[in-house]
């Protein structure tokens, strides 16, 4: 294909500013999807995305516009999925930066725009939702010009809802975004920028050909994995997967290579021809650093192996997950997993449950601490259970985030209170415009992890937005709060917190567990303790009675079945010492929302 006829771009924006809806209009306008097959946010194909109304996975699709071939990638906007965006950008020469014309610049508008600049991409900016009565495109065009340096007159004005201006946007893409460069005669270099495991077709990878030509049926070499595979099928998504005979430089499509070992088709892999290999792989990606960790355990202990396979397969589709086996006294065998944020953690857990039919328990989220020991060693701890004994600890350091919050100025006060209560340190305040402020804070990651986002949203009536990145480690007065059931430590509930908040955590956890743990045949004391000193206690009183119903001729069968069921339930319970706890108690007790 003539390189000059190709345009590759990602649609980027803050969450909910209308990327997927814009993609819908583009699919319609280019007749890629029939009107009768159209549905809102067509590219959000996962159930989870449709239920939550957000994009989780970037999706690429090929459309035709005025004699040119466009590959567009709809990306997610949530801060936890920034890695999806940066991977997508590596397959593009430009971006469409969408900004809600009623909201203006938000935190991820900035973050994603900076990402595009880092990748040297051409930016086509568009103010969206101009159909809304509250839209104020003139004002926000100025804001974009001031903050991002994009001339106001270059900013398009569109409504992804009505379709207004979308044709002009596509024209702008065609004119302004450069065609890809590449050498069709050079040895093949194709970048895998995403992969997913399909139950029926095996591993399906999204690829961007940089140099050379990829032909169906050829023998391929996966350069980093050092594995040889055949190109069983190559094709393009229009968005229906459509096989093609070859993909040339600048083209984006998919590759099915009959891969069994899911580790071979990682994002960032470079594919070349076996017979004529490229001398160098492409730069690929640096896997992002996980921020939040938790243990994932199958409720049914027999599912451990299934969990391992499932995480492996999911990792293909989400390279940012890290995992390694761990064991817990109460929960048995599971994995310590790392995530980019809390939403990410929640989504991964839910995808594992849905896509692989698992029932899982997630332990309380933790960050990665650096523990300086009295003997001079440093230990990295992401699981409270692994914290060395108090007497061996010199001090503990915790990760801090550089947090930026963009908000209408009337919420500055209440948001400063929030940051304060989360041990935040104010950096600078910047006015983006007379009405809007960007606040810079240093906040311990552990404090951001716990419902910070929701608090910020509710205090600002939804108007504030948040972006953050790791800024470094600092020494803090941290302690481990242990939970003891009947005198036995329940590692799944223990946590590391700032000393000022330890008592509160201990008390709340004791109260919750008292509500949740079913009565046993004996009194169960629940204690929260710091280094052996009890700071809070509750008791689950012994069970005094069970069913006292009639047991005559017709009741005997029923009774026996009841007992059988009770026995089955007992088998599934997790035991801490002699205390038997149903799996869902862990789930409820470790819920974050209160």
């Amino acid at each position: 294909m003539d390189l000059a006829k190709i345009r590759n771009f990602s649609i980027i924006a803050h969450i909910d500013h209308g990327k997927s809806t814009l993609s819908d209009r583009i699919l319609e306008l280019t007749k890629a999807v029939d009107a009768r097959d159209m549905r809102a946010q067509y590219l959000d194909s996962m159930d989870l995305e449709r239920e939550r109304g957000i994009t989780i996975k970037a999706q690429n699709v090929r459309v035709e516009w005025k004699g040119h071939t466009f590959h567009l990638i709809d990306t997610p906007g949530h801060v936890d999925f920034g890695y999806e965006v940066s991977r997508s950008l590596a397959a593009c020469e430009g971006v469409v930066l969408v900004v809600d014309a009623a909201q203006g610049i938000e935190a991820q508008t900035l973050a994603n725009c900076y990402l595009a600049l880092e990748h040297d991409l051409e930016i086509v900016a568009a103010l969206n939702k101009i159909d809304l009565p509250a839209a104020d495109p003139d004002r926000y065009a100025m804001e974009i010009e001031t903050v991002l340096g994009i001339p106001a007159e270059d900013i398009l004005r569109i409504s992804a809802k009505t379709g207004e201006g979308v044709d002009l946007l596509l024209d702008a893409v065609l004119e302004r975004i450069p065609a890809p460069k590449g050498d069709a005669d050079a040895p093949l270099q194709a970048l895998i920028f995403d992969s997913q495991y399909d139950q029926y077709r095996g591993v399906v990878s999204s690829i961007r050909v940089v140099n050379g030509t990829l032909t169906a049926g050829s023998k391929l070499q996966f350069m980093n994995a050092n594995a040889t595979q055949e190109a069983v099928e190559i094709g393009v998504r229009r968005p229906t997967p459509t096989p093609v005979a070859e993909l040339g430089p600048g083209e984006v499509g998919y590759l099915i290579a009959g891969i069994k070992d899911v580790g071979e088709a990682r994002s960032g892999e470079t594919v070349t021809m076996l017979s004529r290999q490229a001398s160098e792989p492409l730069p690929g990606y640096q896997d992002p650093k996980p921020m939040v960790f938790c243990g994932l355990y199958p409720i049914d202990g027999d599912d451990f192996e299934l969990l391992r396979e499932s995480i492996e397969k999911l990792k293909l589709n989400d390279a940012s997950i890290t995992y390694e086996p761990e064991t817990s006294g109460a929960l048995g065998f599971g994995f310590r997993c790392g995530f980019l944020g809390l939403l990410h953690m929640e989504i991964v857990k839910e995808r594992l449950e849905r896509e692989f039919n698992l029932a899982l328990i997630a332990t309380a989220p933790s960050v990665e601490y650096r523990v300086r020991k009295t003997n001079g060693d440093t230990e990295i701890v992401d699981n409270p259970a692994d914290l060395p004994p108090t007497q061996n600890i010199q001090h503990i350091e915790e990760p801090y985030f550089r947090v930026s919050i963009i908000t209408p100025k009337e919420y500055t006060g209440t948001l400063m209170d929030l940051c304060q209560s989360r041990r935040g340190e104010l950096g600078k305040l910047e006015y983006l415009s007379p009405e809007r402020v960007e606040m810079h804070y240093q906040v311990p990651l552990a404090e951001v992890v716990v419902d910070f986002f929701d608090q910020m949203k509710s205090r600002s009536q939804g108007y504030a937005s948040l972006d953050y990145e790791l800024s470094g480690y600092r020494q803090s007065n941290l302690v481990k709060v242990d939970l003891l059931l009947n005198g036995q430590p329940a590692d799944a509930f223990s946590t590391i917190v700032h000393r000022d908040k330890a008592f509160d955590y201990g008390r709340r956890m004791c109260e919750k567990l008292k509500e949740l743990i079913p009565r046993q045949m004996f009194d169960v004391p629940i204690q929260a303790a710091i280094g052996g000193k009890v700071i809070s206690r509750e008791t689950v009183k012994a069970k005094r009675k069970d069913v006292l119903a009639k047991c005559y001729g017709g009741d005997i069968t029923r009774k026996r079945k009841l007992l059988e069921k009770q026995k089955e339930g007992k088998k599934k319970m997790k035991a801490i010492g002699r205390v038997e706890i149903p799996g869902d108690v862990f789930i409820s007790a470790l819920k974050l929302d209160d």
Partner: protein
Amino acid sequence: MAALLQDVGQAVANGMQTVDTVFVGGGTPSLVDPDLLMSVINALPLSSKCEITIECNPDNVSEALMHAYKSGGATRISLGVQSMRTNVLKILGREHNPENVRTAVEAAKTAGIDEINLDLIYGSVGESIDDVRSTIGEVIALQPTHVSAYGLTVEPGTPLARDPSRFPDDDDEADKYLLINSLLEDAGYANYEISNWSRKGSECRHNLLYWRQGNYLGFGCAAHSHVNGRRSWNVRTPDRYIDLVASGESREASFEELGQEARTLEALQLALRMRDGIDERHLLAPDLEMLEEFLTRENGRIRLNPRGRLVANEIAVRLVAGS
């Protein structure tokens, strides 16, 4: 009744064995013409010392009815008393006058029916511990030979099940059970199954048969039968039952057949509930230790003490058939 008679007739024709106990219950048998009822019973192959119990609503017991039962061979009546407190009866949705219980008991005794069971329910929300105390006091004063008392249970699909505010409280029910047990024991009624107390020798033989996995045949709609490990139950509605009897087809709605292992375990679970208890090897050592306060142990046998009876299920699920 005609269908019932026909059903019994067919069973007898098929070689039904002599029975030692008969229990007429479910619904309100005391509303049926007593002579008709007794003719059905007498169509059965009864043993000479047969225990024949009829369940009665205290509201429709008269001396005449009791005489009819007696002369038809009945040896025992069971009265659905529930409570002797009007306020509690109201909560339970039964509006009979406790006075009827007294006259019913008198009527039975006058007619010469000596074995009398009073059936109680405790644990409803709104019933005080004093309500229970006075009910038991009045029950004892009536000198029945047998008392059964059941905790109010939330059955799915009932109006109670839709109103969690009226769900019985575990601790409250436990307190009431312990009170009932001690009052009855003090008055000379011995507990012989979790919810059943009697004067010596007045244990209900029919109940014991159930709990010892004996064989029994059930006649009528929704009646259950058990023959050598095969449990079956009849169709639910009278119409279907009548049709099936008329056409000579099986009245069975369904059945289950217990394997040897399940049967053994069930036998243990039932035995645990009774006075004689079970051999202690059926509990593992750590469980025995943990459950110590709920059991009395003697000569290698374990019995549930009053607090243990309250948590019989918890103990039953820990039973092992053992070697």
